[in-house]
């Protein structure tokens, strides 16, 4: 039975590694300017975690195979070096490993979060609410009008609570239900929650940020490939959480301009 267990553990360990090695379910293809850092970090971590995983499972299996049901006159053998060697090994091997991961990971994180958006980044606002995203483009004046929470009315399609009669800045704001962005241009995404906690996650874009009610956050990113992607909510927000999504279209600058004009006409 011990040998069966050892074999089972090895089979499970190898079977677990197969889909990873064969890239059966890989990370979604990266379309962002900063994503390669995350992907490299992920790949490095996968190597280290994979080796630790396989090595420890196989060691466990070997020891089970070898030391179960010993001969009656067998004596206890001590692991060479004893506990001290293992503690040192843990500190040295895992310590350097995690330190390296930590330091390089900090770089990837910093790339995404510590640099300010460039001055010519395109500002887009996203508002999350139960259970849809709405996007706002500032229009020709480049300014977003103020949000009046008491005017928010999904019944009248005033999703942002804009007062277009009194607020000058609101008049040319363009509110849309899908997000389109020009390719290779930095986007400065201003995040606002209408009601609860939500999240903005585009796996291909390597972007993931929660909406915090009462606290407007912003992130910035650049998409490098045109195409249609999905923005999904990852923060449990109620019964329609699974269907809280919007499409993200990365368009060529010309297509983007045309799209924006078309949306402006619909306001």
């Amino acid at each position, binding site marked *: 039975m011990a040998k069966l267990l050892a074999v089972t553990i090895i089979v499970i360990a190898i079977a677990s590694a197969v889909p990873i090695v064969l890239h059966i379910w890989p990370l979604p293809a990266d379309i962002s300017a900063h994503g390669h850092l995350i992907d490299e970090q992920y790949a490095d971590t996968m190597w280290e975690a994979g080796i630790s995983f396989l090595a420890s499972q196989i060691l466990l299996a070997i020891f089970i195979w070898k030391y179960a049901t010993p001969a009656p006159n067998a004596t206890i053998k001590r692991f060479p070096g004893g506990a001290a060697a293992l503690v040192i090994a843990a500190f040295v091997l895992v310590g350097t490993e995690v330190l390296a991961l930590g330091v390089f990971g900090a770089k990837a994180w910093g790339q995404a979060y510590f640099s300010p958006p460039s001055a010519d980044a395109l500002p887009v606002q996203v508002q999350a609410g*139960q*259970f*849809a995203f709405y996007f706002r483009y500032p229009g020709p004046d480049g300014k977003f009008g103020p949000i009046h929470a008491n005017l928010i009315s*999904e*019944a009248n399609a005033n999703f942002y609570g804009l007062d277009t009669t009194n607020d000058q800045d609101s008049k040319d704001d363009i509110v849309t*239900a899908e997000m389109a962005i020009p390719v290779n241009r930095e986007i400065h995404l201003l995040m606002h929650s209408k009601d609860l906690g939500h999240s903005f996650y585009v796996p291909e874009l390597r972007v993931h940020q929660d909406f915090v009610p009462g606290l407007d956050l912003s992130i910035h990113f650049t998409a490098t490939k045109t195409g249609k992607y999905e923005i999904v909510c990852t923060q449990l927000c*109620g019964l*329609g959480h699974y269907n809280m999504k*919007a499409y993200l279209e990365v368009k060529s600058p010309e297509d983007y301009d045309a799209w924006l004009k078309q949306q402006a006409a619909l306001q």
Partner: protein
Amino acid sequence: MTRRYHFGAVLSAIVLLCCGALILGQKVNAAGEGSITGTVKLDGPAPHMRGIDMSKDPYCVKQHASNPAHLETWVVGSGGGVADTVLYLDGWSGAAQTETSVPVFDQKDCMYTPHVLALDTNQEFKVVTSDQTAHNIHPLPNPMINVGWNQSQPPGAPPVTKAWKNPEVIPVQCNIHPWMHGWFVVVKGPYAVSDDSGHYTINNVPPGSYTVKAWHEPDEAQTQKVTVAAGGSATADFTLKAK
């Protein structure tokens, strides 16, 4: 043996008599009731109704591929007739519940049909779904007046049967498709909802003087006084203004 037959015969006769009296009585009553008819019109041009972008749910987009969806705040027919106006008798003091039919509130193509559902107090209604995407029905009454609910209806789920206890104008929304917006207008007594050409008829109105109230979303309300003769019909036309 014969006595038993006698008893049976007498009982049947009594039952028959009672039923007959009831039916006759109703007929007599119905003969005395009148109706109020009229037209609801809009003053000025029909406001522009914004289109609805349903892109978040591809199913909804597909349903509206040929007929683009737009807001239904003002549905104005030819000749300026306004649909979805609720007409009812203000200060109704007659029977507690006059309407007993079970109207249907359908979720079809990611919109509500009808957009406005008028109801008598305690009148049961059915919420059904014709869509292959899940909706949630979330009416939000004033908690001091009625008890709200929020319930999903996945595709193929049986109808939800509900009723409202007290008169109130209750907005209803689907949060999964936030553009889906409708109204439950709960009134006491007979009511009618104007059709696409603005016509309406309130039936079963006993003779007497009434104030007819016309309600249109979001909070437009007008009144007119009419007198209904026994078996006759009164007319009340309304002209609304879009804000």
